[in-house]
């Protein structure tokens, strides 16, 4: 386990910024209430075997007692670095993103299952979408009852969404909570 390099930090923050915008500050500088210490430490990012974990400092201190090879996971895994050096967000960061998301998309109940199977979101399944979403923005996908289902990249801006035909893709799927069942081994 080690803290992130400067380059790695930039990569992680860039990816998170796509979804949260200026709320990134909340994520990085939020204070944790874990542990028995009086002064609440902050949350920090740690790298273990190419996976980036968002973990409170108190936990990190205790995790140093575990052997490096034997440490499997700590805190919440938010993503991993590929062999090529690029960073991808995984589904486990959904809670973090959902709270601080800048652009959200609500799905109709009929197309919820389709998204949970890993398909992209079509216009026909789109219930609501936040204003001034531009193409290429990160969006968090919710169900109509405000349950976060996953996240993805907006394929079209809000204006263009209106003009689209019902079978056009509006959100490119990146991760959904169905992955917990489908890709149990990978996570």
């Amino acid at each position: 386990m080690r803290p992130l390099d400067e380059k790695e930090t930039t990569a992680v923050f860039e990816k998170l910024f796509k979804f949260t915008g200026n709320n990134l500050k909340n994520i990085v500088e939020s204070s944790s209430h874990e542990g028995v210490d009086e002064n609440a430490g902050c949350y920090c990012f740690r790298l273990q075997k190419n996976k980036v974990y968002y973990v409170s400092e108190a936990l990190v201190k205790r995790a140093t007692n575990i052997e490096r090879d034997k440490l499997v996971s700590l805190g919440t895994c938010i993503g991993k670095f590929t062999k090529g050096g690029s960073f991808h967000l995984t589904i486990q960061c959904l809670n973090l993103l959902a709270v601080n998301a800048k652009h959200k998309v609500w799905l109709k109940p009929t197309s919820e299952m389709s998204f949970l199977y890993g398909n992209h979101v079509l216009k026909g399944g789109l219930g609501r979408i936040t204003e001034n979403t531009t193409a290429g923005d990160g969006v968090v996908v919710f169900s109509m009852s405000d349950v976060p289902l996953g996240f993805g990249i907006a394929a079209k801006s809000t204006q263009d969404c209106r003009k689209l035909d019902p079978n056009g893709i509006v959100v490119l799927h990146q991760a959904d909570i169905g992955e917990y069942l489908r890709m149990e081994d990978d996570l």
Partner: protein
Amino acid sequence: MELQEQKYQMVQIDLGNLMAYDRHHHFPSVPSERGELVKECLQKGTELVQAIADVLFNLPSTEDRDGPIVQLPPPTTRLPREKHLPKPKPPTKWELFAQKKGIKKRKKDKIVYDEQTGTWKRRYGYDRVNDDKDVPIIETKMTDEPGEDPFAKRKEEKKKRVEKQEKNRLQNLKQAVKVGALPSHVQLAATALPITGTQSAPKKVTKDELGNVAGMAATSTASGGKFDKKLPGEKPAKHPGKYRKFLPVVEGTGMGSQEKQQTDKVLSKLLSKHSHEILDVNKAVTMFNVKKEKKRKNQQGKFSSTSSKLKPKKAAHKKSSKKGFSKKGSSKGQTK
């Protein structure tokens, strides 16, 4: 024809350099103006070029893809030397000795008869006469010690001889340099010896530089120099292991300042890069327009209604605009 011959007599043409030279040319009267001078020069020049062209086109030509090709004769004008004449090198130590003693050089044959094998072999090089490895038996003498290896001894002696010869060669070269008569191939190769004329001092390598270089050389093995035997007195490498330095995992009490600094730096960079996206121009424009419209409406309404009625309207209008601006940051609303 006569005139032409006369012209050729006066003009010397060197076809190898494509040059025409008029020895008897002189200006009858030097024109005062520069323009006139230029014109006269050009005129004379054209005459000369014409002479060259005449002779050139009289040469036999071969047909080629691009046109007729003419083989120019070798040039006749002798140009001066580009570089200086090579200085005679000073006689080497052996040459001096030979002169004194009166030893003359003898022509040596390339192939010599080898007594040992009974064949004709080269005097030097591969498969040569009197080679050390061909000697099968060396008889011992009374002066030999019991543990000595005579073959090894011979090898060492040869090495010593070679070293001595090399030393002498270098000494001779140094003498030549003093005079300034270094052979050109050595001159080019020698960076330590100064080039004739300049007195450049040899570059001194500092202790740090040497240390760096030695370190780099030591670690440039496949395994990073980890398994190499260290010489006695050699200090351990300054940069052991990886070159990447990571921040400490957990730093003392509270969040490590270094890590915090780093994250803050990255965060601020990122936010500043995207700061231009904070303001939604379209929304701001529509808000401004709406505000203007309402103002105009109020202005019109002033003439028809009392002032007291306007105030609450204005207050309500202000509130809505404020709400709009605060909403911009976290826009959560339906599309219009």
